[in-house]
């Protein structure tokens, strides 16, 4: 299924980029009364500045993501939320979160964040056993060990790699060049681990493949279910600019902590 989606995505994107030809102007354009202020202020000191050399492409992907969200993602998430009781939804979230703990552990170690690594190790041990394969987050609720959030993008940041240009990823949303690299590494590791786990179930190849893609799809819906962001709810015509800044501020915070 995913194999079919990706080429389709690129066709849609290509069409959107192609449609971007400037509209035919009827009347002569008269310069605005007010023009750019603070020409002399370095860009970093401007409110809401983010390095975004690929803005035209990013904006189109942003529009695509909003449409994808409205017509594909959210209807699926709504159906998911309608069908399943909250308890089951939470168990599914916990299950997938438990699987990503390995990435938290590795990345904590790579950044010498020993306390985080120990906590994460404890969480994996507790939740995978007492928490029935990760379905219940016993570590948080009983032992008070809170979940860490370390990914490879943050590890790269820890070693001094800057964020690079802002990047809006199809479906995934706001990112930057460094974090996209990090995401690829984390995803490959995650996919490998999933395949190993599934391999232990002793199913035939077709069954394994179906389960793998089924879990991947479920995990995507779970991710969207957990995220309350809705497109065009800022009520601002400058939403792209605001989201760009806030998402990057958040990443910077995560790198520093």
């Amino acid at each position, binding site marked *: 299924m995913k194999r079919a989606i990706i080429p389709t995505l690129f066709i849609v994107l290509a069409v*959107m980029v192609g449609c*971007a030809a*400037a*509209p035919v*102007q*009827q*009347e*002569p*354009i*008269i*310069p*605005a*009364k*007010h*023009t*750019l*202020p*603070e020409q002399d*202020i370095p860009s970093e*000191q*401007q*409110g*809401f*500045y983010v390095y975004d050399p690929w*803005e*035209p492409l990013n*904006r*189109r992907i942003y*529009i695509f993501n*909003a449409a994808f969200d409205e017509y594909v993602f959210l209807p699926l998430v709504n159906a998911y939320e309608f069908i399943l009781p909250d308890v089951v939804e939470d168990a599914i979230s916990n299950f997938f979160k438990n699987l990503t703990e390995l990435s938290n552990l590795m990345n904590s170690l790579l950044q010498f964040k020993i306390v985080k690594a120990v906590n994460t190790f404890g969480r994996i041990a507790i939740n995978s056993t007492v928490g029935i394969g990760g379905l219940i987050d016993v570590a948080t609720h009983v032992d008070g060990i809170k979940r860490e*959030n370390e990914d490879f993008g943050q590890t790269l940041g820890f070693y001094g790699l800057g964020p690079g240009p802002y990047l809006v990823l199809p479906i995934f949303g706001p990112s930057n060049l460094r974090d996209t690299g990090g995401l690829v590494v984390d995803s490959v590791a995650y996919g490998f681990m999933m395949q190993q786990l599934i391999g232990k179930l002793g199913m035939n190849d077709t069954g394994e493949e179906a389960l793998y893609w089924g879990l991947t799809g479920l995990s995507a819906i779970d991710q969207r279910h957990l*995220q*309350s*962001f*809705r*497109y*065009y*709810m*800022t*009520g*601002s*015509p*400058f939403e*792209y*600019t*605001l*989201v760009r*800044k*806030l*998402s990057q*501020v*958040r*990443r*910077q*915070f*995560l790198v520093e902590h």
Partner: protein
Amino acid sequence: MKPLLRFGLLILLAGVAGQSAVAYDYPLKDPYLATVIGTPSELQPKLPDKIDYALLDLTVFPERKIPDVFYYQSQFRYSLTYQKVEAPLIFVIAGTGANFYSSNMIFFQKVFYQAGYHVICLSSPTSMNFITTASRTSLPGNILEDARDLYRVMELAWQQVKGRIKVSEFYLTGYSLGGAEAAFVSKLDEERGSFNFKKVLVINPPVSLYSSAKILDQMLLAALPGGLRDWGQWFNRILEAFGEFYETMGRIEISQDYLYDVYSTIYRDKEPKRENLATMIGTVFRISSNNMVFTSDVMTNAGVVVPKNLELGAADSLYDYFRVTSTMTFVDYFHELLFPFYKAKQPQLTEQRAIQIDSMHHIENYLRTSPKIGLMGNEDDLILSPEDVAFLKDVFGSRARIYPHGGHCGNMNYKENVADMLNFFRN
């Protein structure tokens, strides 16, 4: 966690204030702090976590072509929360720049629903959705015209929902600018009679739109000794602290409610300086008014911040326009967009006259003689001058409830205020 921390701050402040046995116990005596922090959740009435409501869309002007840059604005959207039985219907109008789903609006939605009303929440005429889809001129800020736009939307909404709910009688309220608009809408309703509102409550309104806006414009500069040039950096510092919130990242809304929430969480441990609070209040107002300036300018092709006749595409970068509009005050908006529009229609109109019309003074007689209209205000409301407060007391007389403190809308969610609101409508 947040409520607990807020409560901590509250105890601290209450201790400093050290007042006891006063009739009114809203804890924040500093109007700046009250305006930003609002009411700690422990002191708000108990409300359901979540209530069901319907999102409804209206096409107000079928002929209107919305510019590509607002491609995501096709219809006017509002919410309806309804009772299963016959009940009174209340319309709630949001404050400057706010949408029907802003946290204060959700608050009122729950309050009135819990008290047995059907509730229709309407975005402010100054919000982007209203300007693009429901404002006849796309130039909000003239309360008379905004009231007409609101009335049109309310009539259409009523047509849309009357098949599914049973309504006994109509009520109306609004806060901040929405409060002033509610008063004008009520007057309009006396002439047109679509609703015959039984009671109308005006909460924390400006008296003169122009002078309140001027106060808020000025406040922005309180913590910026170098003037507007320093604003970007000041704001960037606030934003850096913002990185701390995973959960709030989910819901991003550029409204006063939301930004104040973020700000008060940032400063939960230390008492913020007054000039920072003032700049924050000014920032929130400036951002709302910037959204309005850009949206109105594009909609009317006025050529103030966007070159005249330039058709912006859906994917065009707006960052430079964002920077240009951020230098403009509401007062600039009045002089460069709003006033010229009406001046072109009525050449004899002066700025002074336009400012005068745009205030509660204009409907003073109606306010004075209408027993159905009540007022809730604060003695220390930041957007009012002492003369404004005196005017409100004089005009509304026994129908005015003026609290000794609460800043601008800070105490609106306080349980005693909410009880007073419900009492007003009940009696």
